[in-house]
């Protein structure tokens, strides 16, 4: 089955991101396809490179990047949600006269159109986080 996944929470505020991650891993292991994981609302923070939780918490940020590396999963953060929260990729930062490069490895920034695209291509959309 083809899944589109939307994540609405920041990694520290609820269990939603962890559950989404575990679901994604499990579904890939079982041979399903993940069309895209789209990060919206506070979910944008999942791609913040500078998050530095204690190592013994097995930071999700590292595991998202691994997931993208291993399976080529498309981790897309909504551009307007990201900008609102000060999460800028290098080219966008330059355009805004800032010097950030905030995206962790494996993430990209794009518009809501890619969320609709994922919804249309997938058999199911799963939304994690309030």
């Amino acid at each position: 089955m083809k899944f589109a996944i939307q994540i609405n929470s920041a990694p520290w505020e609820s269990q939603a991101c962890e559950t989404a991650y575990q679901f994604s891993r499990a579904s890939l292991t079982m041979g399903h396809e993940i069309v895209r994981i789209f990060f919206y609302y506070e979910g944008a923070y999942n791609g913040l490179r500078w998050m530095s939780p204690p190592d013994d918490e097995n930071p999700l940020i590292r595991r998202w990047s691994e997931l993208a590396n291993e399976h080529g999963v498309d981790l897309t953060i909504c551009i307007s949600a990201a900008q609102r929260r000060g999460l800028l990729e290098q080219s966008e930062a330059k355009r805004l006269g800032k010097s950030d490069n905030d995206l962790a490895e494996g993430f990209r920034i794009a518009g809501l159109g890619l969320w609709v695209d994922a919804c249309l291509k997938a058999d199911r959309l799963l939304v994690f986080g309030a």
Partner: protein
Amino acid sequence: MKNFLFVMRQPPFQGSRIRESMDMIMTVAAFDQCVKILFLDDGVFLLKSNQNPDNPDLKTSTPLFAALELYDVEELWVEGESLAERGLDPSHLILPVRTLGRTEIAFFLAKADIVVNC
């Protein structure tokens, strides 16, 4: 084409939340998909008329809903019980809505291809 149903349960003035939800709804509509919005619980306050904060820093979200017509989003549904429990009826709202009963909600949700709680 898919049937998208957005369920709005939050009252107005929730930071950027409503604005971001409306961005989603308008994007889907721009892709010529079928869009319905269901207002549940405190979400019915989003359509309440006469939201006129004196403070210019506080922007109402009602113009965003009024603009939905331009995107051909005309199916606005409200749970009747949510309205009644808050002392409201459809005449208090800025836009014409269709009313559903609480017992009909589950079936209504099941009919959509994609349901987004926002």
